[in-house]
C-alpha cells in the first residue's frame, strides 16, 4: 500500500539542492542586473528633468540681474548660455526663461533662442525652440488666439497672439526666414508623445504682435 512512499523517497534521495542553488544564483544575478539597469535608466530619465528644472531656478536669478542691467549673465559660472528673455503664457500659467542659442547644450536647461533670428520681442522673426517633454511640454495645450508675453532684457513686455499651428518637416527651414511681419516662432518636436528623440517632424506655432 504505502508503496507510493517509495518514489518520493527516491526522489528525495536525489541531491536537488546544488541544481536549485545554480538557478537561484542565476535569478539573483538577473534581478540585480535588472534593478541596476532600471535604476540607471530611471536615473538618466530623471536626470534630464532634474537638470531642466533645477537650471530654470538658477536662470531665474540670472534673469533678475539681466533685467537690472547686466549683460549676458551666466546662470552658473561655467555655463555657455544665458537668459535673453522671459516667456509667459497667462492662460496656462506658464513661465519660462529663454536661453541664448537653440543647440543641445542650451536646450537641456531651457527653451533656446535660435542664433541669427531676431531677438525675442524685437522686429523680425524670433525663433524659440524647446523640448516637448520638458520646457515646451505646454505646447500641446496652446490654442490659436492665446496670448504670449515676452519680457525683454530692458524690462519691456511685448504681447503676441498665436496665429497658426503647423506640423512641418525638420527641413522646412523657411520657418526661420526673417521676412514678413514681426512674429514669435515656437518650435518643438512632434508627435508630442513619441518615445524617442530625433524624429523628422516639428510642431511650429506662429504668434504675431497683438
Amino acid at each position, binding site marked *: 500500500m504505502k508503496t507510493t512512499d517509495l518514489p518520493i523517497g527516491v526522489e528525495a534521495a536525489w541531491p536537488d539542492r546544488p541544481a536549485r542553488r545554480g538557478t537561484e544564483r542565476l535569478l539573483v544575478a538577473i534581478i540585480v542586473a535588472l534593478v541596476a539597469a532600471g535604476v540607471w535608466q530611471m536615473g538618466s530619465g530623471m536626470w534630464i528633468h532634474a537638470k531642466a528644472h533645477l537650471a530654470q531656478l538658477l536662470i531665474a536669478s540670472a534673469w533678475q540681474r539681466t533685467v537690472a542691467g547686466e549683460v549676458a549673465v551666466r546662470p552658473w559660472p561655467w555655463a555657455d548660455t544665458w537668459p535673453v528673455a522671459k516667456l509667459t503664457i497667462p492662460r496656462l500659467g506658464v513661465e519660462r526663461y529663454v536661453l541664448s542659442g537653440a543647440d543641445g547644450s542650451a536646450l537641456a536647461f531651457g527653451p533656446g533662442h535660435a542664433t541669427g533670428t531676431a531677438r525675442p520681442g524685437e522686429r523680425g522673426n524670433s525663433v524659440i*525652440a524647446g523640448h516637448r517633454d520638458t520646457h515646451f511640454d505646454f505646447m500641446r495645450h496652446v490654442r490659436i488666439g492665446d496670448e504670449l508675453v515676452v519680457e525683454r532684457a530692458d524690462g519691456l513686455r511685448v504681447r503676441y497672439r498665436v496665429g497658426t499651428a503647423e506640423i512641418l518637416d525638420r527641413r522646412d527651414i523657411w520657418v526661420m526666414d526673417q521676412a514678413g511681419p514681426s512674429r514669435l516662432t515656437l518650435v518643438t518636436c512632434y508627435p508630442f508623445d513619441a518615445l524617442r528623440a530625433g524624429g523628422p517632424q516639428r510642431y511650429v506655432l506662429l504668434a504675431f504682435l497683438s
Partner: protein
Amino acid sequence: MQTGPLTRTTWQDVVAFLGLAVLLGLAAGLLLGSMALLLATPAYADERASREGALLMMSPGNGEPAFAAPLVSTDVVFQVSGPLVRARVVQTFENPQDEWLEAVYVFPLPENAAVDRMKLAAGERLLIGEIRERSEAKAIYAQARASGRRASLFDQERPNIFTTQVANIGPREKVVVEIEYQHTIRYDGNRFSLRFPMVVGPRYLPGGARPVSDAARITPPVLKPGREEGRTNGVSIRVELDAGMPLGPLDSAYHPVAVEAPSPSRRIVTLAGGAVRADQDFELSWRLSDAALPRAAWFVEKKDGRHYGLLMVVPPPLERGPPLSREVLFVLDTSGSMAGASIRQAREALAVALARLRPEDRFNVIEFNSTAQSLFAVPREASERNRRAAVRWVSSLEARGGTEMAAALRLALAQVSDSERLRQVVFLTDGAVGNEDELFEIIRAQLGSARLFTVGIGSAPNGHFMTKAAHLGAGTFTFIGRVSEVGERMGALLAKLESPVMRDVQVRWPRGVHAEVWPARIPDLYAGEPLVVTAALDKLDGALAISGDRAAERWSTVVPIVQGTRASGVGALWAREKVASLMDVLRRGVAEAETRAEIVALAMSHRLVTKYTSFVAVDASPARPQGADLLSTPVPTLLPAGWDYAKVFGELPQGATESRLSLLLGISCLLLAALAAFWTRRRA
C-alpha cells in the same frame, strides 16, 4: 507547500520592493541631476538633444521653381589611348512644357579637362561654337537670347565647374549641346584611373572679409530627396579603352559596368544598367600586366608649325629606406556635408592612418566645421594610449554645421612645432567649399616646410580643391568613395608618406632645341607617381635627360624625342597646363591684367575654355516668335549620394529628449526585476 500565506507576503514584498526601487531611481535621478549642473558643459556634446538650425549653405529656396525646369540627360563617350583621354559629352535639354525656355545647367568636369570644342544642335541645324573672351561671349549670347535666336554659352566657373546655358528652347522641344575635352589619365602605383564627376555638391560659402563673389554661379538649386519627381539628370557612359599593351583587370568603383574585350589591349566599357543618376562620381581603373609596364612615354603632335610633346616617366621603385622621423597632423572635416556615409569613411581612414604611426612619431588631430578645435594642445607622441584617445575622440564627433576651412588650415599650419621632424598635414574633406582661392593662398603663405596631403571623401569630392591643395602643399592626394576602399587607398597614401620623395627633378632638353615647358618647376615625386611634363618645341631632335634626388641617390634616365607616339590633343594639354601655371602665378599676387591677357591669347589660339574665355554658338535666324515670353530656369541638381539634406541646408532645432524612453525602460526593468524576485520567493 503552503501557498496561501506565502503569496500574500510575497505580494507585499513585491510592492515594497517596487516602491523602494522607484525611490532609489528617483534619488539617483535627483543626485545625477544636481551633478549634471556641476559637470555641465562638455557632458552634453554627445547628448542627442538638438542642433542649431541656421542656414549653412545658400538656401535652395522654399521648393522648386514655380514652373517646370528643363530635363537634362548626358551621354559621355571616352576614347582612351594610353594615358590620353578624349571625351565627348552630349547634353540633351528637353523642354517639358508649352513655354519657351532658357536652361542654365551647372555641372562638373575633371579638374584638368581642356575643353576645346562645343556644338549646338537644334532640330536640323548644327552650330559650331566659337571661342570668345568671356564678356564678349556673354554679350553675343544675351543678344541672341533677346532676339529669339537659339544660342548656347559655355563658361568655366572653376577648373572643375562649368555652366551650359541654352536660350530659346521651343515648347516640347529638344536641344543638344555637345562639348569635347582632353585630359590625361591619372597614373599612380601601376594603377590608371579615369574619373568623371557627375554633380557639383552644394558648396559652403563662408561670409566674412572675403565673400565668394560668384556664389550664385556655383550653387544650382538642389532637389530635396524624395521630391525629385523622376528627375535624375541621367548620365550614360561608354569608355573605349586602348591601352596599347595587354591589360590587367578593370574595376569600376561605384557603378556596375559591362566589359567587352575585342583584343587583349582593348576594352569597351558601358554602364551595366544604362543611364545612372547624376549623384556619384564614376571611376574606372585598370592595371597593365607588370611585364608590359613602360618606364617612359613620349607623345607628340604637330600643330600650326609647332611641335607639342607630352612626357611621362615612371621612376623605378625604391627599397624602403630608414624610417623618417615625422610629425603628422590630421585635419578632419566634420561639417554638415560630411554627414552620413562620408564621415564614416573619414573616421575609418583616420583610424587606419593612426594605426600605422610608429610610437616615435608625433601627431595631433584637428576637427572643424563652423569652428576648429584640436585634440591635443600640441602634437604628442603616438603612444598606444594617445592613439586610442584619438580614435575615441574622432568616433564621438558628429558632422554638422559650416565648413570654415580657413580657420582649420591656419590652426593646423600654426601648430606644427618640432622643427627636426618631417611635417605632414593629412587633410580629410569633401572640399565642399566655394572659396578655394582663399584657401590656396593660406596654404601657399603658411605652409613653411610642411607638406599637405589631401584625402577626398564621399561621392562627389571637389577634385579641383584636392589636387591643387596637394600641389601647392608639395604633397599628394587620394580619393575615397566608400568604406571598403579605405584600407587600400589609405594604404597607398600612407606608403607615400613613409617613403622618401624624389626632389629636385630636372629635365634637360637637347642642345639646340628650344622648349617651352609646363609646369615650369616639376613637383617632388612620391613613390609610384610619374613625372608628367608638357612642352612646345621648335623641332624634334636628340634626347632629353631626366634626373632627380631620392634619399641618398641620384637617379637619371634618357629619353630620345625624335621618335614619339603621334597623338592628337597634346597641344591642348600643353595650353591647359600653361593656363593652370599662369593661374598659380596669379594667386601669388601678380597683377591680373597681365596674366589675363596672356591667358586670353593662349586660349584663343588653342580654342580653350578658361576662366576668361567661353564658347558661344548662335543660330542665324530667330526661332521664338516676337511676343512669346522666355522663361529662364536653372536645372536643379541631385544631392550627392550619401549626403544628408538636412545637415547640409540646416534643419529646425530638435525639440525632444530621450527622457521618456529612459523612464519607460527604467520602470520596465524594475517591474521585471520585481516579478523575478516574486518568482524566486515562490520557488523557495
